[in-house]
């Protein structure tokens, strides 16, 4: 029962594929067990005894333990697969979905699935603040390509609900937008939340597919200074506690002495 799987991934087709480097003994099965409800899904290991494939797209949200069963006993499935690829994650999020399934490997090497309800967001892949602009690039996640649809970026000031809007380029799922910092300096000091709108999709700008949750303190963007009357405003992109991208603008304190 100590067979170590060398491949455990969920493909864009929402199938969990498990492979072993050598054939398992006859009669082995894969069991998915829902942590919250105890419900199970079972599938025998394939005829070659080196792989198993399970449809996981309809699983209830929550954590599912992946176990290997022989006769009536089952043990956690062990793997040496890191279970993570940026390219696969990006391809997976490239299709419209209302739930996302991800393989998670524990520190002991055990495999589980994490099923989450998702709604489209605009995955930020790069931010370039400089020369009076903030350029943002990324891809629409869980919305699928939106051919022929115009896209706009809307910044909403959190307190006053004032908005700043700019056209965005949307090419398939890839988006690109350029925001002049003056637009943010012209308003009251504020925190601006950023949204990408394309057709019926209203997607918050966020970075969630880079496997590094909690970006505050991990990364920081430079500020840009803009004249605001007699004073100066500082405009700077930042990540919120939920890894959403926002823009902070505030008056620079006047130097004393």
């Amino acid at each position: 029962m100590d067979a170590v799987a060398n491949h455990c991934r969920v493909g864009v087709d929402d199938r969990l594929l498990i492979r072993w480097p050598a054939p398992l003994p006859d009669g082995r099965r894969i069991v998915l067990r829902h942590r919250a409800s105890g419900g199970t899904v079972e599938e025998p290991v394939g005829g070659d005894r080196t792989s198993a494939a399970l449809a996981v797209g309809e699983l209830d949200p929550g954590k599912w333990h992946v176990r290997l069963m022989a006769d009536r006993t089952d043990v956690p499935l062990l793997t040496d697969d890191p279970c993570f690829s940026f390219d696969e994650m990006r391809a997976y999020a490239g299709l419209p979905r209302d739930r996302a399934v991800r393989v998670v490997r524990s520190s002991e090497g055990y495999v589980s699935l994490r099923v989450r309800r998702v709604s489209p967001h605009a995955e930020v892949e790069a931010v370039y603040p400089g020369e009076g602009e903030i350029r943002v690039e990324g891809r629409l996640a869980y919305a699928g390509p939106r051919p022929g649809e115009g896209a706009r970026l809307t910044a909403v000031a959190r307190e006053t609900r004032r908005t700043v809007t700019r056209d965005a380029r949307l090419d398939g799922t890839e988006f690109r937008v350029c925001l002049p910092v003056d637009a943010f300096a012209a308003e009251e000091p504020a925190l601006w939340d950023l949204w990408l709108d394309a057709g019926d999709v209203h997607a918050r700008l966020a970075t969630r597919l880079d496997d590094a949750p909690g970006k505050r303190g991990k990364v920081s963007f430079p500020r840009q200074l803009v004249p605001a009357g007699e004073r100066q405003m500082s405009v700077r992109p930042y990540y919120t506690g939920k890894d959403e991208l926002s823009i902070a603008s505030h008056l620079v304190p006047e130097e004393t002495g």
Partner: protein
Amino acid sequence: MKITFMLLDAFDVDGTVRTTFTLAGELARRHDVEVVSVLRNADRPVLPLSDRVRLRSLVDLRPDAKVPWPNTARAERLMAEPTRMVHPEERCYNKFSAWTDVRITRFMKRLRTNVLVTTRAGLNLAAARYAPGRVVVIGQEHLQLGIHQPGILAEIKEWYPRLDALTCLTVADREDYEATLPNGSCPVYTIGNGLPDQVYPRSRQENKVVVAAGRMVWIKGYDLLIGAFAKVVEKHPEWRLRIYGQGVRREELLRKATRLGLYNNVLLMEPTDDMEGELAKASILAMSSRAEPFGMTIIEAFACGLPVVGFDCPRGPREIINDGHDGFLVPPADVDAFAETLIRLIDDEDLRHRMARNALASAERFDVAAIAGLWEKMLTELRTEPRRRTGR
């Protein structure tokens, strides 16, 4: 045989505790093994210790711990007084007290074990003074000789010959200690740290990530690494650097990454309890240390199938990395050369895959089973009569 390991604080998270637990757990497959911690401040150790190993402590610092009558008042008084036994230049001097002096010497004098392994200078010196001659005493040095101040060094020269043997982590350390200790007085063995026996995740070389791990302090050279990575990004803007750790330099490193425009490429990650998992998601380990007594992260990265680019700093990396085979050694502090070497590995995927395979093979040398074998061989040599007269 009964083997007793002695740690200053087995409840702390630290490299010495980790490697001692790993070795103790492996030796306990064939021997009676206990770990004695001088200090205890928690119910259970943070780091995993095998059920096969007994753990006890000498001084209980938990809030509701009481020293039993008749020593209650004396313990309280002595805990507040500085140690007289341990030299003020011991790097953990402040953790010792007059009460730990009492407890350590009493423990040493009444030892009922075949082998005592002490794990830092202060404990090595105490064992050399007080452990009975019938016990084989091994002192371990996890740090290089040069780190000791002159005062404690004089004690080391005076007392270490009374150890049955000294172990250190690198050949360079062994040479230093052999040169320092009077000729032939105390055998010095080089035995590296062992990798715990577990299933390691293996990098598929599929993510464009360079990883680094360790405390965010000057000695780790992350300032140099971030500088080098700025040059990598000029050629490969899609590659990312993730540094895992915590430390006093964190804010400064974050500012440097921002100043160099690396906010899309460099992330300063929090420490994680699954470092191997994070290593295996990456494709290259960067070891930018200005000095590294051993380099446990290099071995862990090897076990996860990562080639390593490291500065050829004193001392561990050059003894672990086989230059051009499982990693590359770069002249110390040469940021440009570090960047060029990373770029070379990034450019040449075949080379990266080949070196990753070699790294996996290199990790086997440090399998704890192999390391425990070296310990057993040494202990057999040392226990064979007639034993060297240590003067204890």
